[in-house]
């Protein structure tokens, strides 16, 4: 405390301003940029969600309609259809990536020849631009001349309508998203696994634990905090899924792969129901925030447990 006061006084003497002012001066520029780029648009969003309004029809003055945008969206069966679909998509997508990621990370723990090469290759997809990924998978999955069906035919299997058939297209999107983002799970799981001290496994080995018992009682609990963060990231990202759907299927066939975000995009920028889309966006935001809160609370509980309180 005393030391701090001394440095404080030194600061005053040198610059004539206090630590606090100094800190504020550093923060202010970025604060302004944030306010300008996030605060203002967000305020506008909230405001327009209470209006009947389209940016295309500037001649018609925005009309205040209270919560009617919200009630319309929440009463609309189509919206709930999108929610259900997105929920299903998110659950399967995240589960696939989590299981694959943890599994592959488990296998990659041991040092073997070529491990670093494999690791580098595995991490490549994550570094690509989602639009690029969407586009080239769209070509690869093309029913008539895509390479995937070509290979299937070579081994004597029938063609699959990856993107053109309603029941399959969802799984194609999951396939591509998992191809791109499983590496992220692998990376984090691997980091979490490597942080577990080796002597614990030696102790478990001495204690006659099987591989599964070790994984279940040492690896999983000790890497849980990191795995949960990775899961949270993938969950939020999947909930927002837009780019791959946009490039791969365009939400089709029909509306088979329209996620909430894609639905929002259509309402906002194809039909230009600006007011309605604003309300939709806010509802989506609420969902994501509340889901995140659940996870963060769980994470906090875990952290508290780990520090023994």
């Amino acid at each position, binding site marked *: 405390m005393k030391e701090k006061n001394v440095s404080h006084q030194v600061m005053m003497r040198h610059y004539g301003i206090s630590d606090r002012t100094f800190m504020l001066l550093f923060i202010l520029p970025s604060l302004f940029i944030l306010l300008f780029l996030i605060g203002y648009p967000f305020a506008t969003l909230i405001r327009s969600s209470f209006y009947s309004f389209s940016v295309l029809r500037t001649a018609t003055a925005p009309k205040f309609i209270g919560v009617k945008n919200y009630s319309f969206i929440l009463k609309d069966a189509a919206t709930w259809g999108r929610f259900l679909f997105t929920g299903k998509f998110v659950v399967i997508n995240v589960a696939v990536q989590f299981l694959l990621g943890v599994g592959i990370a488990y296998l990659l723990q041991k040092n073997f020849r070529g491990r670093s090469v494999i690791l580098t290759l595995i991490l490549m997809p994550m570094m690509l631009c989602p639009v690029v990924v969407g586009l080239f998978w769209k070509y690869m999955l093309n029913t008539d001349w895509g390479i995937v069906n070509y290979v299937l035919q070579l081994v004597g299997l029938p063609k699959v309508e990856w993107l053109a058939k309603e029941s399959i297209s969802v799984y194609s999107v999951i396939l591509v998203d998992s191809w791109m983002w499983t590496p992220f799970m692998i990376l984090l799981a691997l980091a979490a696994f490597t942080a577990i001290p080796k002597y614990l496994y030696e102790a478990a080995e001495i*204690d006659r634990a099987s591989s599964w018992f070790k994984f279940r009682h040492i690896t999983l609990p000790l890497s849980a905090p990191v795995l949960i963060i990775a899961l949270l990231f993938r969950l939020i990202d999947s909930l927002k899924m837009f780019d791959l759907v946009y490039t791969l299927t365009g939400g089709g066939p029909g509306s088979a792969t329209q996620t909430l975000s894609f639905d929002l995009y259509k309402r906002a920028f194809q039909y230009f129901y600006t007011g309605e889309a604003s309300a939709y966006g806010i509802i989506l935001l609420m969902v994501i925030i509340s889901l995140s809160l659940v996870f963060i609370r769980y994470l906090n509980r875990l952290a508290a447990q780990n520090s023994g309180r």
Partner: protein
Amino acid sequence: MSGVRVQNLKKYYENVKAVDGIDLEVRNGDLVVLLGPSGCGKTTTLRCIAGLEAPTKGSIFFNEKNVTRLTPSDRNVGMVFQFYALYPHLRVRDNITFPLRAQQVPRTQIEEKLKQVVSIFQLGNLLKRKARDLPPGDQQRVALARAIVRDPSVLLLDEPLSALDEKFREEMRSELGSLQKRIGITTIYVTHDQREAMALGDIIVVMKDGVIIQRGSPEELYEHPQSVFVGHFLGTPGMNFVNVIYRNGAFYIDGTNQNIQLKNEGLMKRLRPYEEKPLIIGIRPEYIEVDIKSETNGYLTITVLTIEPAGRFRLVDFILGEKIFRARVNWDLSIHEGQEINIRFREDKICIFDRQTEEALIS
């Protein structure tokens, strides 16, 4: 429970010979201490016995059954690691029952076993605590409890007391010793602390640079070290050494005009082959007799350098033949620094080493 036999064990890492040909026999129920400075291969030997390291060469037998190729879990050993390696996220109770749960032992049996070790180690009030929250002393007891809860055939201890502070270490040392005797489990104990080794071991095996230097009971090693190294390493403080030439019933101390005239006929007879040979003689501090009278026949006269209190005794430093010697004298002997005193070595306790090989000729 079983005896352990290690036969010509070698463990080479890329360019280090960590263990270089060790033969070891531990009788059923004995406590054998592997003692040596750090890097001598004692921990590697233990890890090979545990099955955590695959030996480069050699075999390991438990009760004459070759276990060299078995995994640790198939060997059924209990082990306490240097820093205990408790499962930090588990409660004490789950740490102790871990080996039982891993083997799907029935619940009632687990509870029974738990009760037993809890009463042995007095862990009753700790069961619900997380392992990571325990102080080192408690961690040590939990680690021991975990190691013996499933009745292993052999107990392996890797410097189990080194993380404790001195006072507590001595308490735990005697507790550990009596516990081992009580349950009668074959135990191999690794340490670099010779006092621990002397206090606990039925047999002490002294290692250096991956090989065994000497083995025997604590008394044997203390009284009859087979090398300068062992004499120096054991004892607090260790043995004193000085370079001498033996000539005609007397040791002539190098670099001085002093000599030690022997009276013991037997010793002189045994020394006959070493006439005029360069030797090292060693004597333990407590076998140096001090006389403060001005003129005493057959004694060497030396000057006291420093005096250091050591409990009931005092340690007197002096120089003899360019080496610092320490003698242990009674607490109430009235001497002071700078004083000239007379000393004499107890002839039956003198150890004689070859100066070239530093190995014992007579000890």
